[in-house]
């Protein structure tokens, strides 16, 4: 369906390209330099932090489902795990890893 929709818009729509139109849109100013330049290191940092904490979240899911059977044993195990991650979060926080300026 998706492919046919894109194809249809190519077939149905008019096609009158010219050099100006094909240029990158930059509010009417002639574009300078390439778009794919280096990006802020913050984005990489966010991505890495995401990997850590999202895997944590995924670990919680099966644990949450069977917590009623695991009772105190499972709860304490998970609290230890959670504690380690919270220490990590506190460390990132203090080091300024979550600051955006």
């Amino acid at each position: 369906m998706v492919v046919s929709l894109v194809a249809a818009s190519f077939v149905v729509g008019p096609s009158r390209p010219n050099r100006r139109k094909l240029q990158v849109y930059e509010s009417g100013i002639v574009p300078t330099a390439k778009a794919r330049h280096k990006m802020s290191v913050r984005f990489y940092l966010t991505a890495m932090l995401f990997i850590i904490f999202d895997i944590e979240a995924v670990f919680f899911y099966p644990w949450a489902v069977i917590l009623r059977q695991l009772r105190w044993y499972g709860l304490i195990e998970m609290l230890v795990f959670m504690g380690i991650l919270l220490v990590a979060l506190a460390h990132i926080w203090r080091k300024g890893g979550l600051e955006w300026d």
Partner: protein
Amino acid sequence: MSALLAYNGPNPGGLYTDPVGHWVIVVVAMLVLLLVLVTVTAYVVFLERVLIGRFQRRPGPNRVGPYGLLQSAVDGVKLLTKESFMPSGVDRFTYLLAPAIAVLAALLTWSVVPFGIWYGFYNWIANVNIGILVIFAISAMNVYAIMLGGYSSNSKYSLLGGLRSAAQLISYEMALGLSLVPTFIIVGSLRLVDIANYAVHVGPLQLPLLVLTPIGFVIYLLAAVAETNRAPFDLPEAEQELVGGFHTEYSGFKFAMFYLAEYMNIVSVSAVASILFLGGWQGPLLPPVFWFLLKVLLFLFFYIWIRSTLPRLRYDSLMKLGWKLLLPLAIANVIVTALVVVWTG
């Protein structure tokens, strides 16, 4: 993967157990779902335009068809007949792939979302026991669509929009994921039908799960707004700074696909919210389908309402809210719920 229709009635000609008949039903159900979904999405766009018009004290679209009801259809045709050109310098393959992924992710989410039609009759395509996990996995593909769209366009606006968007999506995904853990602890299942059927008994009353998981509900609502790139978290496409964000260089139907995917995602987070917190199709007196639509509409109205009420956040405060408030709050919520559940048995 199992039965597609939780149908407790007669089994005409063994259609539900027959291997071929089974697939016939699956395909028919998928096509019906596709049609319904696209129509619903089109009318959500219409609803939003009308409501925002009313919030701003103007009539909104009211010219095409009775009360403007055909506006969305006409818009679709217009976008289809627009020139769908490809700017120079784009990475052709990924440029075309990005909107396809967006729509695919939005549609696939619905394969596991159940919705009550009638008593004991729920329509879904796959009743998987890890339903909510599947939804998260598929909706996470949205990041790829936005990132690839932003990167392949060879435009600075697109790249910045795509980057911001990816960082925002992954930041709020953790809060979103953790906000639901208390629900799973209480229900003890990831199957969406089980969660929807779970009712809290307080004396003679049957209340939805919301009464036990209010904090999770609030976190989910906020994170879901951020996940669907809606105002006040619509920084990836902040018009005043980034023109159109990641879809600046998209035209014609390729743009329409991003648009469609965005609104389809809004409908799906509303549906998931109503299943997880408000009991989905459960409700007194009226038939299930009515209750389900009512609850979904309630959430849709809420999203449109906050869009027209709140100004856009600054980027640093957006990240601060996600990482420093919602994430610790969600973890605390998990710990407290787990303690209470284990304590009370």
